């Protein structure tokens, strides 16, 4: 036999092509195992994005009212709105979280240990402390507002609580509840989240702040409550936090790079850019320009609240897409430290 070139029929440029393995994308590396994802996607259901959103609203509303009071704001309607919004959010949050467990009746096992390195453990404790402290402040508010009746022991003792101190004590835990959800998903092996580990907490916290502000201004505008000055301050704060949010979204997308594809493409990308970037940040920013107006304020608040939910939902969905893509995992878990030399590859 003279020189022959043998080439297995299924080999073309290192790509395998058989009936079972149609050649796909030239940029794809010829690696992996039948496209089966090497990592698992998260299994959290609808309760989790709703909690991320509600927890953020509660956190933002509480922190804003506390800081405003410290700065000398004396608007009672505003304080009430902030406290009651936080109360409702913090009453629903644990319910949602427990519903999502595989074994809801065992939720209390979360409280048997404190683990600094586990954002979910720290989150449980932060949420417990924040919900209780802010809940007491809200109860004291309710007692003073006469919602618990006038002349009974409960109303008297709640009214006697140091509500200002409770609010201030709760504030750092409120900040924590707003931010930790971002850190929680960032500290996983899901490429799109892990890649953006540093900015995930700030992004969620900023969104918590803007949704909290919007929830308050929505309630105040709707009821026609609150002083003019408070509403103006709220609008100012909303504009600033939306600007920050826009910056953080842009920085996150840049940082995610090739691993951010699920958030940029397909239906998810459309929902994210339409619902959050355009609908939840840019449109309300435009609406909130100029003089404060009730109608525009209400619309802007609703848009921000919807955008905040879509942000969390889209990021959680994107995590699933990212985990399903073997190439995302392989290219992310990479270091040039393998003892395989080129010629063996």
């Amino acid at each position, binding site marked *: 036999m003279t020189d022959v070139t043998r080439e297995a029929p299924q080999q073309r440029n290192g790509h395998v092509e058989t009936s079972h393995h149609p050649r796909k994308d030239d940029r794809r590396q010829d690696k992996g195992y039948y496209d089966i994802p090497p990592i698992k996607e998260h299994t959290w259901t609808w309760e989790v994005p709703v909690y991320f959103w509600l927890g953020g609203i509660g956190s933002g509303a509480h922190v804003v009212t506390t800081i405003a009071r410290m700065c000398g704001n004396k608007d009672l309607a505003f304080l009430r709105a902030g406290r009651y919004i936080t109360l409702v959010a913090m009453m629903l949050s644990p319910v949602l979280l427990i519903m999502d467990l595989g074994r809801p009746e065992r939720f209390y096992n979360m409280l048997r240990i404190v683990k600094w390195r586990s954002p979910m453990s720290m989150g449980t404790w932060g949420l417990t402390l924040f919900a209780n402290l802010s809940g007491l402040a809200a109860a004291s508010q309710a007692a003073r507002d006469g919602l618990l009746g006038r002349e009974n022991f409960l109303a008297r003792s709640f009214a006697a609580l140091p509500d200002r101190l409770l609010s201030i004590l709760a504030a750092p835990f409120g900040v924590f509840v707003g931010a930790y959800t971002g850190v929680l998903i960032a500290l996983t092996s899901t490429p799109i989240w892990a890649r953006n580990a540093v900015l995930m907490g700030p992004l969620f916290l900023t969104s918590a702040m803007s949704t909290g502000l919007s929830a308050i201004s929505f309630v105040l505008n709707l009821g026609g409550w609150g002083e003019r000055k408070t509403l103006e301050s709220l609008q100012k704060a909303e504009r*600033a936090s939306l600007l920050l949010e826009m910056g953080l979204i842009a920085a996150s997308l840049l940082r995610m790079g090739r691993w951010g594809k699920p958030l940029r493409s397909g239906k998810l990308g459309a929902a994210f850019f339409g619902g959050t970037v355009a609908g939840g940040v840019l449109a309300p920013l435009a609406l909130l320009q100029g003089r404060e107006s009730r109608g525009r304020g209400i619309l802007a608040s609703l848009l921000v609240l919807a955008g905040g939910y879509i942000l969390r939902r889209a990021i959680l969905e994107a995590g699933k897409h990212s985990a399903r893509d073997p190439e995302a995992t392989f290219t992310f878990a990479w270091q040039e430290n393998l003892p395989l030399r080129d010629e063996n590859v």
Partner: protein
Amino acid sequence: MATGFLTDTTVCIGCKACEVACKQWNQLPADGYELTGDSYDNTKTLSGTTWRHVAFIENPKKKRLTGDVDLVALAEDVREQLPGGAELDALGRWAFMSDVCKHCVEAPCQQACPTGSIIRNEFDNVFIQPDICNGCGYCIPACPYGVITRVPEDGRAFKCTLCYDRQKDGLEPACAKACPTESIMFGEVEELERRAEQRVQELHDRGYTSAFVYGTPEVGGTGGIGGNHSKFILMDEPETYNLPRHPFLPQEKLNQASAASIAAAAVLGAVVAWAFRG
């Protein structure tokens, strides 16, 4: 004493005895009868009900055979200089690999678990205590190898226990016991490391220079998580076996993430104070 596995993929014959032994001993339910159409592997992946998974890797090679090749000689002695510079690898290879929980030294799943259900037991194995787990599901995306899933009918997360119950009675894990080719070895981690080195050396001497140990902190794969107590001898790139090349410890970024969040909180606090000042 730390115990672990060494899975030598070079002698695995793909009989799936380990998969079956594991299911039987641990009383794990069947996963259905789906056919993948990809290979003889219809199990596909590790999960809460599959703690050993045999991968079937049909491995066509990218190199072309040139020249007049004596296939018999090629099969008999790989050290022989082949005409035309052909290489054995050009024949392609069918590789098998019995995958399992890696029992990471710094286990991401264990660090993530908020209930403290995931512990290191007295054999230094990563163990999910089934009476503690409440099915929060955080360990699932935390694991860099996709080992854990939540079992829907049960609600809890499960994975390889390294046969904790058998070890307590002085027995080796069911998969290692069942393996007919000693592809799965069980023992003390240090002893297994020695064996792995020896075997890789042997393979190199025979001309299989691509052999290496996956799961040691120094080489290949596991810089971030301090190595694995379940190691593998591999002949190809980790990705071929569906393993990440450099899995990382997600919790390593905790400090950075926290610092950034605190900084963001300060900025936002200042912004709100500015809006409400005076």
